[in-house]
């Protein structure tokens, strides 16, 4: 029964992804008919608002539900809708989204008397806006003809691609440090200082971890430019390193080429999201966090901003390391189906679903980590960033660069990458069981 319900829920979510992406393609195609570039405007609506925002809002409940699953409890089920049909059903905790929204919107937006009013109100906006703009360069689907117009499922395709992500991500630090400063609260100030030092430290490792991918694919773009056809990272991964059979083999995904880069990027980006184990800026049991003075929707912006970051980080990782919207194999075979050939938007919606399912998996991994690990200490986070991630990133860069120069087909890089993955798996499965404290044989008598 439970397995059936879970399978149904998963199928339902996948179907929702499909419908959303199909709608996005059709709307974009229609809009392109009005004037060139209008499709990008509908993409803002569908990708940023519908997909990222709805996923982030759903995550507020999903996080509670999933953590409940991990911790052997029931999870949110108290909020219920008083309609005759739904009465007495917890609906998987979904009404909690409504309850949270109403609570936050109806609370007083309290500003401490000694706070700097302008900066205090500006901080949540700055923090949220920077995060929200991050998704612009991530492609969620292929470029296809719909209604005789070329439609690309991405908001913008600047030639500086990844650099845009680094630039905008570093803007988010202003929001958090301003929030800590403007509150005129000592604990919030500590949080703000922690947040800014942590985010600035991890910028370096964040950028360095992706340089290997940049030189491997010779681009900083994520999406392929629809005009010039310059290949982006996502499409560059859609080929085989080795083929076994006609349409089966090892894809040139970033995770196989740059496993170290992936781990470094994941750790650094995770630190940027300021979620556990990197949640020192809020550290609710020590300093209560940089947003301790915020209430209502201003606090809500900080909170939902974290979830938006989780979704966007998952999207970026999917695009860079997991082949984006491409299937690992069999894509060429599937693309020859009549249905897909005659209705390209169905093919686009299918690949878009692939993208979001991968992203959802990465989101799940992030939540798994968040609910398993304790929090770092302030100096330990800095040590991890500067003394481990940064040297590892440099080493990875030199090794990768040498391998790419030696073998431009990337096969040497993939062999080393697979070896690294194998080492990690071997270490994981050969770890010894926990050593408990040795009890003293007999107690001395005092």
């Amino acid at each position, binding site marked *: 029964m439970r397995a059936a319900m879970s399978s149904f829920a998963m199928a339902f979510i996948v179907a929702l992804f499909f419908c959303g992406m199909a709608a996005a393609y059709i709307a974009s195609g229609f809009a392109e008919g009005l004037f060139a570039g209008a499709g990008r405007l509908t993409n803002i609506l569908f990708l940023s608002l519908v997909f990222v925002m709805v996923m982030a809002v759903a995550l507020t409940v999903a996080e509670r539900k999933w953590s409940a699953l991990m911790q052997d409890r029931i999870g949110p089920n108290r909020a219920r809708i008083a309609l005759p049909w739904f009465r007495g059903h917890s609906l998987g905790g979904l009404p909690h989204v409504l309850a949270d929204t109403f609570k936050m919107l109806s609370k007083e937006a309290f500003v401490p008397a000694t706070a700097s009013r302008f900066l205090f109100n500006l901080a949540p906006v700055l923090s949220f806006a920077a995060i929200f703009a991050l998704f612009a360069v991530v492609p969620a689907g292929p470029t296809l003809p719909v209604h005789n117009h070329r439609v690309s499922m991405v908001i913008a395709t600047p030639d500086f691609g990844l650099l845009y992500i680094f630039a905008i991500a570093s803007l988010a630090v202003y929001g958090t440090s301003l929030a800590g400063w403007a509150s005129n609260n000592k604990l919030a100030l*500590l949080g703000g200082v922690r947040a800014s030092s942590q985010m600035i430290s991890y910028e370096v490792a964040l950028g360095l971890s992706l340089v290997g991918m940049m030189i491997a694919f010779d681009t900083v773009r994520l999406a392929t430019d629809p005009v010039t056809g310059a290949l982006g990272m996502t499409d560059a991964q859609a080929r085989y390193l080795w083929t076994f059979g006609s349409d089966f083999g090892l894809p040139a995904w970033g995770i196989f080429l740059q496993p170290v880069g992936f781990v470094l990027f994941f750790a650094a980006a995770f630190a940027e999201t300021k979620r556990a184990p990197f949640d020192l800026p809020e550290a609710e*049991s020590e300093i209560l966090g940089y947003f301790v003075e915020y209430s209502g929707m201003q606090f809500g912006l900080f909170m939902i901003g974290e979830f938006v970051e989780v979704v966007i980080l998952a999207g970026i990782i999917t695009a860079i390391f997991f082949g984006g919207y491409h299937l690992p194999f069999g894509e060429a075979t599937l693309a020859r189906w009549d249905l897909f050939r005659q209705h390209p938007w169905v093919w686009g919606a299918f690949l878009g679903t692939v993208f979001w399912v991968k992203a959802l998996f990465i989101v799940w991994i992030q939540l798994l980590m968040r609910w398993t690990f*304790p929090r770092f200490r302030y100096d330990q986070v800095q040590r991890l960033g500067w003394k481990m991630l940064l040297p590892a990133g440099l080493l990875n860069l030199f090794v990768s660069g040498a391998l790419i120069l030696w073998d431009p087909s990337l096969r040497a890089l993939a062999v080393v990458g697979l070896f690294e993955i194998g080492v990690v798996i071997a270490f994981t499965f050969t770890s010894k069981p926990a050593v408990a404290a040795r009890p003293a044989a007999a107690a001395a008598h*005092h």
Partner: protein
Amino acid sequence: MSESELEAHFPTQNMVVNLGPSHPAMHGTVRMRIELEGETIVKADPEFGFLHRGFQKSAENGTWTQVLPYTDRLNYVSSLMNNFGYLNAVEKLIGLEIPERAKYIRVISSELHRMADHLTCVGAVGLELGGFSAFLYGIEARELIVDRVTELTGARLTTTFGRVGGLNRDLPPGWTDVVLKTLDKISSLAHEVDGLLTRNRIFVDRTKDTGVISAEDALDFGFTGPCLRACGVNYDIRKARPYWVYDRLDFDVPVGARGDNYDRYLMRMEEIKQSDRIIRQAIKQMPVGPVIIDDWRVALPPKPEVYGTIEGTMAHFKLIMEGVQVPPGEVYDSTESANGELGWWLVSDGSGRPYKCHVRAPSFALLSGVTRMIEGQLLADLIPTFDTINMIGGEVEQ
């Protein structure tokens, strides 16, 4: 003129932060006034008294039996140990020997509550370091113990179990079988906590070499229990001066080496396992028989005697109205509670009420040591340190 005279010094001053009395990391309601230089603690000043209830004075106004409910509120996480510790001291003052079965039941239920106390402590360490899952596994296990205690005493928290001379009731039928099953479940949950924390790199980094106290300092501050043993001092009253039936039970006392947070955590994890051993043996050895002595000057007579005989009625009346007539004298007696030596200094003037009732609460000494343990360390280290000493507000602020 030296160089330094010309240097313009940036005028800085230390920041004073209040943690508490209402703060997630301050168990009970302790206020910590902390002077910070950056994130380093220059000076920490614990201030307590927000939970003060006047326990010692209240005790003088009730009969010896009426003090028992107040003892529930001392260490409210493991109230049975307070109950039995107090009763043991009163019995020593009278010079009573309680029945065998009562001794075994006291050991079993004390050890159950020791496990509950340690599970709460270990879970809270996880919680406040940000690992919420470990906390809920610990609490799930504690909840099972609370259920067993409820079956035994009728209360979840304020147990008021046992009477002078033994126990007020025998075990419920089938209770020991459920306890054995509960122990199986608890050890599997403790294993989960172990897996989540013990070898977790972040957890080890956070707790190892933080909140260190040397054995000499620990002894000077009057540390006892797991916190003292974590420093390498092998002192456990159950072994050093066995009471009840601890000398007939085979168990080990874990001893640490470094006296840091990690060792204190390990002590508690190991003691959970040892308590499990003790309970299993005690259930096997437990004889059948009375659970309270048959002396109507101390224990209430059975109800048919109260309602049917004049002697029973008289004994009941005298015990309820005047209390147990404890001979004049004074006594110090201590038992090993979850946090250390729970000592009682009782003075009787023969009036049926305590003349003086002083509690040597283990947490009081532990709280005094916190200042020594965290000064010069980072603010973030205060959290695991405060957790692993497991200070219980109700015990410190009587």
